[in-house]
Protein backbone atom coordinates (compact mmCIF):
# COMPACT_ATOMS: atom_id res chain seq x y z
CA UNK A 1 0.00 0.00 0.00
CA UNK A 2 1.48 3.32 -1.11
CA UNK A 3 -0.20 6.57 -0.09
CA UNK A 4 -0.43 9.13 -2.90
CA UNK A 5 0.80 12.16 -0.93
CA UNK A 6 0.09 14.63 -3.74
CA UNK A 7 -3.57 13.61 -4.00
CA UNK A 8 -4.19 13.35 -0.23
CA UNK A 9 -6.31 16.28 1.01
CA UNK A 10 -6.60 15.64 4.77
CA UNK A 11 -7.81 19.08 5.89
CA UNK A 12 -10.30 19.70 3.10
CA UNK A 13 -11.70 16.19 3.49
CA UNK A 14 -11.93 16.48 7.27
CA UNK A 15 -13.72 19.85 6.90
CA UNK A 16 -16.08 18.32 4.31
CA UNK A 17 -16.77 15.44 6.70
CA UNK A 18 -17.54 17.79 9.58
CA UNK A 19 -19.99 19.69 7.34
CA UNK A 20 -21.68 16.42 6.33
CA UNK A 21 -21.97 15.45 10.00
CA UNK A 22 -23.44 18.85 10.82
CA UNK A 23 -25.97 18.49 7.98
CA UNK A 24 -26.94 15.01 9.20
CA UNK A 25 -27.35 16.42 12.74
CA UNK A 26 -29.52 19.27 11.45
CA UNK A 27 -31.81 16.93 9.47
CA UNK A 28 -31.99 14.59 12.45
CA UNK A 29 -32.79 17.14 15.15
CA UNK A 30 -34.65 19.54 12.84
CA UNK A 31 -36.77 17.00 10.96
CA UNK A 32 -36.38 13.82 13.00
CA UNK A 33 -34.98 11.98 10.02
CA UNK A 34 -31.95 10.06 8.81
CA UNK A 35 -29.91 11.92 6.17
CA UNK A 36 -29.71 8.86 3.93
CA UNK A 37 -29.61 10.05 0.34
CA UNK A 38 -30.81 6.77 -1.15
CA UNK A 39 -33.90 6.77 1.07
CA UNK A 40 -34.56 10.47 0.51
CA UNK A 41 -34.32 10.10 -3.28
CA UNK A 42 -36.53 6.99 -3.20
CA UNK A 43 -39.18 8.86 -1.18
CA UNK A 44 -39.24 11.68 -3.74
CA UNK A 45 -39.23 9.19 -6.63
CA UNK A 46 -42.21 7.27 -5.19
CA UNK A 47 -44.19 10.50 -4.77
CA UNK A 48 -43.24 11.88 -8.17
CA UNK A 49 -46.26 11.18 -10.37
CA UNK A 50 -48.68 12.94 -8.03
CA UNK A 51 -48.46 16.58 -6.97
CA UNK A 52 -50.46 15.88 -3.86
CA UNK A 53 -48.06 13.16 -2.74
CA UNK A 54 -45.08 15.39 -3.53
CA UNK A 55 -46.43 18.07 -1.21
CA UNK A 56 -46.66 15.46 1.56
CA UNK A 57 -43.00 14.58 0.90
CA UNK A 58 -41.85 18.19 1.12
CA UNK A 59 -39.23 17.40 3.77
CA UNK A 60 -37.17 15.01 1.58
CA UNK A 61 -37.95 17.20 -1.42
CA UNK A 62 -36.45 20.23 0.35
CA UNK A 63 -33.36 18.20 1.26
CA UNK A 64 -32.86 17.20 -2.40
CA UNK A 65 -33.35 20.83 -3.46
CA UNK A 66 -30.62 21.87 -1.00
CA UNK A 67 -28.31 19.19 -2.38
CA UNK A 68 -28.90 20.41 -5.95
CA UNK A 69 -28.29 24.03 -4.90
CA UNK A 70 -24.95 23.17 -3.28
CA UNK A 71 -22.70 23.46 -6.37
CA UNK A 72 -24.26 26.82 -7.25
CA UNK A 73 -23.72 28.20 -3.75
CA UNK A 74 -20.18 26.77 -3.79
CA UNK A 75 -19.41 28.61 -7.00
CA UNK A 76 -20.32 31.95 -5.42
CA UNK A 77 -17.43 31.57 -2.98
CA UNK A 78 -14.88 29.26 -4.60
CA UNK A 79 -13.84 27.88 -7.98
CA UNK A 80 -15.55 24.65 -8.98
CA UNK A 81 -13.16 21.69 -8.57
CA UNK A 82 -12.22 19.66 -11.62
CA UNK A 83 -14.23 16.41 -11.73
CA UNK A 84 -13.34 13.39 -13.82
CA UNK A 85 -14.47 9.85 -14.54
CA UNK A 86 -12.31 7.07 -15.94
CA UNK A 87 -15.07 4.98 -17.54
CA UNK A 88 -17.41 5.49 -20.50
CA UNK A 89 -21.17 5.96 -20.60
CA UNK A 90 -21.89 2.20 -20.89
CA UNK A 91 -20.05 1.47 -17.66
CA UNK A 92 -21.79 4.40 -15.97
CA UNK A 93 -25.17 2.92 -16.89
CA UNK A 94 -24.16 -0.43 -15.39
CA UNK A 95 -22.80 1.36 -12.30
CA UNK A 96 -26.00 3.38 -11.91
CA UNK A 97 -28.25 0.32 -12.20
CA UNK A 98 -26.17 -1.62 -9.64
CA UNK A 99 -26.12 1.31 -7.22
CA UNK A 100 -29.88 1.92 -7.64
CA UNK A 101 -30.81 -1.72 -7.07
CA UNK A 102 -28.21 -2.22 -4.33
CA UNK A 103 -29.14 0.78 -2.17
CA UNK A 104 -32.85 -0.09 -2.30
CA UNK A 105 -32.20 -3.78 -1.55
CA UNK A 106 -29.82 -2.97 1.32
CA UNK A 107 -31.96 -0.01 2.41
CA UNK A 108 -29.22 2.60 2.42
CA UNK A 109 -25.97 3.89 1.07
CA UNK A 110 -22.80 5.71 2.13
CA UNK A 111 -24.86 8.31 4.01
CA UNK A 112 -27.76 6.31 5.49
CA UNK A 113 -25.82 3.24 6.60
CA UNK A 114 -22.38 4.86 6.49
CA UNK A 115 -22.55 8.24 8.21
CA UNK A 116 -25.88 7.85 10.06
CA UNK A 117 -25.91 4.11 10.72
CA UNK A 118 -22.39 4.03 12.13
CA UNK A 119 -23.12 7.18 14.18
CA UNK A 120 -26.07 5.49 15.88
CA UNK A 121 -23.93 2.38 16.43
CA UNK A 122 -26.22 0.13 14.38
CA UNK A 123 -24.81 -3.36 13.85
CA UNK A 124 -27.10 -3.74 10.83
CA UNK A 125 -25.54 -0.68 9.22
CA UNK A 126 -22.03 -1.83 10.05
CA UNK A 127 -22.69 -5.11 8.20
CA UNK A 128 -23.96 -3.20 5.13
CA UNK A 129 -20.99 -0.80 5.22
CA UNK A 130 -18.52 -3.70 5.40
CA UNK A 131 -20.31 -5.31 2.41
CA UNK A 132 -20.22 -2.23 0.18
CA UNK A 133 -16.71 -1.17 1.21
CA UNK A 134 -15.40 -4.67 0.61
CA UNK A 135 -17.16 -4.89 -2.74
CA UNK A 136 -15.89 -1.42 -3.71
CA UNK A 137 -12.26 -2.26 -2.86
CA UNK A 138 -12.53 -5.62 -4.65
CA UNK A 139 -14.14 -4.12 -7.76
CA UNK A 140 -11.46 -1.44 -8.20
CA UNK A 141 -8.76 -4.07 -7.57
CA UNK A 142 -10.18 -6.33 -10.27
CA UNK A 143 -10.70 -3.50 -12.78
CA UNK A 144 -7.30 -1.85 -12.25
CA UNK A 145 -4.93 -4.65 -11.36
CA UNK A 146 -6.27 -7.88 -12.85
CA UNK A 147 -7.47 -6.59 -16.24
Amino acid at each position, binding site marked *: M*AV*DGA*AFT*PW*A*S*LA*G*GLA*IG*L*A*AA*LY*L*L*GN*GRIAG*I*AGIVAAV*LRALPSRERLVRQ*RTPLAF*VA*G*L*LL*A*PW*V*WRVFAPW*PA*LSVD*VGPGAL*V*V*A*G*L*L*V*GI*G*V*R*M*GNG*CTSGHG*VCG*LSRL*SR*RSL*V*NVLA*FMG*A*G*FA*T*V*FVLRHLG
Partner: protein
Amino acid sequence: MGTVTALLGGLVFGLGLIAGGMANPSKVKAFLDLAGAWDPSLALVMGGAIAVALPAFALARRRRVAWSGEPMDIPTATHIDARLVGGGILFGIGWGVGGFCPGPALVALATGWWPAAVFTVAMLAGMLVHDRFIAR
Protein backbone atom coordinates in the same frame (compact mmCIF):
# COMPACT_ATOMS: atom_id res chain seq x y z
CA MET B 1 -39.38 25.48 9.94
CA GLY B 2 -39.16 21.88 8.77
CA THR B 3 -38.64 22.91 5.18
CA VAL B 4 -35.89 25.34 6.21
CA THR B 5 -33.88 22.78 8.22
CA ALA B 6 -34.29 20.19 5.45
CA LEU B 7 -33.20 22.62 2.71
CA LEU B 8 -30.26 23.82 4.82
CA GLY B 9 -29.39 20.21 5.67
CA GLY B 10 -29.28 19.28 1.98
CA LEU B 11 -27.25 22.37 1.14
CA VAL B 12 -24.63 21.87 3.87
CA PHE B 13 -24.49 18.15 3.06
CA GLY B 14 -23.77 18.99 -0.59
CA LEU B 15 -21.15 21.60 0.30
CA GLY B 16 -19.47 19.03 2.54
CA LEU B 17 -19.40 16.47 -0.27
CA ILE B 18 -17.78 19.02 -2.60
CA ALA B 19 -15.24 20.22 -0.01
CA GLY B 20 -14.35 16.67 0.96
CA GLY B 21 -13.68 15.56 -2.62
CA MET B 22 -16.58 13.07 -2.77
CA ALA B 23 -18.12 14.74 -5.83
CA ASN B 24 -15.12 13.70 -7.90
CA PRO B 25 -15.46 10.04 -9.01
CA SER B 26 -11.72 9.80 -9.76
CA LYS B 27 -10.92 10.70 -6.16
CA VAL B 28 -13.44 8.15 -4.87
CA LYS B 29 -11.81 5.47 -7.01
CA ALA B 30 -8.34 6.53 -5.79
CA PHE B 31 -9.65 5.87 -2.26
CA LEU B 32 -10.99 2.45 -3.28
CA ASP B 33 -7.68 1.56 -5.01
CA LEU B 34 -5.80 0.14 -2.04
CA ALA B 35 -3.24 -1.58 -4.28
CA GLY B 36 -2.50 1.49 -6.40
CA ALA B 37 -1.55 5.05 -5.51
CA TRP B 38 -3.90 5.18 -2.51
CA ASP B 39 -5.64 8.44 -1.56
CA PRO B 40 -6.93 7.99 2.02
CA SER B 41 -8.82 11.35 2.02
CA LEU B 42 -12.31 9.86 2.06
CA ALA B 43 -11.65 8.04 5.33
CA LEU B 44 -11.37 11.53 6.86
CA VAL B 45 -14.67 12.57 5.29
CA MET B 46 -16.36 9.60 6.97
CA GLY B 47 -14.48 10.11 10.24
CA GLY B 48 -15.31 13.82 10.39
CA ALA B 49 -18.97 13.20 9.62
CA ILE B 50 -19.30 10.53 12.33
CA ALA B 51 -17.49 12.74 14.88
CA VAL B 52 -20.32 15.28 14.57
CA ALA B 53 -23.27 12.96 13.91
CA LEU B 54 -22.55 10.54 16.77
CA PRO B 55 -23.31 13.03 19.59
CA ALA B 56 -26.31 14.30 17.57
CA PHE B 57 -27.81 10.78 17.56
CA ALA B 58 -27.20 10.49 21.31
CA LEU B 59 -29.17 13.75 21.77
CA ALA B 60 -31.88 12.68 19.32
CA ARG B 61 -32.58 9.49 21.26
CA ARG B 62 -33.97 11.59 24.12
CA ARG B 63 -36.42 13.49 21.91
CA ARG B 64 -39.97 12.53 20.93
CA VAL B 65 -40.40 15.21 18.23
CA ALA B 66 -38.02 17.19 16.05
CA TRP B 67 -37.69 21.00 16.13
CA SER B 68 -40.16 21.11 13.24
CA GLY B 69 -42.77 19.19 15.22
CA GLU B 70 -42.33 16.14 12.95
CA PRO B 71 -42.07 12.85 14.88
CA MET B 72 -38.59 11.38 15.38
CA ASP B 73 -38.26 8.70 12.71
CA ILE B 74 -35.09 6.77 13.49
CA PRO B 75 -34.77 3.23 12.08
CA THR B 76 -35.52 0.42 14.49
CA ALA B 77 -34.66 -2.57 12.26
CA THR B 78 -31.90 -4.80 13.60
CA HIS B 79 -32.21 -7.91 11.42
CA ILE B 80 -29.22 -8.93 9.34
CA ASP B 81 -30.24 -10.82 6.23
CA ALA B 82 -29.20 -11.65 2.67
CA ARG B 83 -30.88 -8.53 1.28
CA LEU B 84 -28.83 -6.28 3.56
CA VAL B 85 -25.55 -7.95 2.58
CA GLY B 86 -26.45 -8.56 -1.09
CA GLY B 87 -27.68 -5.00 -1.52
CA GLY B 88 -24.44 -3.72 0.00
CA ILE B 89 -22.38 -5.88 -2.35
CA LEU B 90 -24.30 -4.74 -5.47
CA PHE B 91 -24.00 -1.12 -4.36
CA GLY B 92 -20.26 -1.54 -3.71
CA ILE B 93 -19.64 -3.05 -7.15
CA GLY B 94 -21.49 -0.17 -8.83
CA TRP B 95 -19.62 2.33 -6.63
CA GLY B 96 -16.31 0.75 -7.63
CA VAL B 97 -17.16 0.79 -11.35
CA GLY B 98 -18.29 4.41 -11.60
CA GLY B 99 -16.94 6.16 -8.50
CA PHE B 100 -20.39 7.65 -7.86
CA CYS B 101 -22.67 7.10 -4.87
CA PRO B 102 -26.14 8.70 -4.71
CA GLY B 103 -25.40 12.04 -2.93
CA PRO B 104 -22.37 13.10 -4.95
CA ALA B 105 -24.10 12.03 -8.17
CA LEU B 106 -26.98 14.46 -7.46
CA VAL B 107 -24.57 17.28 -6.58
CA ALA B 108 -22.53 16.77 -9.76
CA LEU B 109 -25.72 16.36 -11.78
CA ALA B 110 -26.85 19.86 -10.74
CA THR B 111 -23.87 21.33 -12.58
CA GLY B 112 -25.04 19.66 -15.80
CA TRP B 113 -22.03 17.32 -15.94
CA TRP B 114 -22.99 14.52 -18.35
CA PRO B 115 -21.37 11.53 -16.57
CA ALA B 116 -23.40 12.38 -13.45
CA ALA B 117 -26.56 12.66 -15.57
CA VAL B 118 -25.98 9.24 -17.21
CA PHE B 119 -25.25 7.65 -13.83
CA THR B 120 -28.22 9.27 -12.08
CA VAL B 121 -30.78 8.29 -14.73
CA ALA B 122 -29.52 4.69 -14.53
CA MET B 123 -29.58 4.82 -10.71
CA LEU B 124 -33.20 6.03 -10.62
CA ALA B 125 -34.08 3.29 -13.12
CA GLY B 126 -32.34 0.76 -10.85
CA MET B 127 -34.35 1.96 -7.85
CA LEU B 128 -37.61 1.61 -9.81
CA VAL B 129 -36.59 -1.83 -11.10
CA HIS B 130 -35.90 -2.93 -7.54
CA ASP B 131 -39.14 -1.54 -6.11
CA ARG B 132 -41.32 -2.89 -8.92
CA PHE B 133 -39.76 -6.26 -9.67
CA ILE B 134 -37.32 -7.36 -6.99
CA ALA B 135 -38.79 -6.24 -3.67
CA ARG B 136 -41.21 -8.76 -2.12
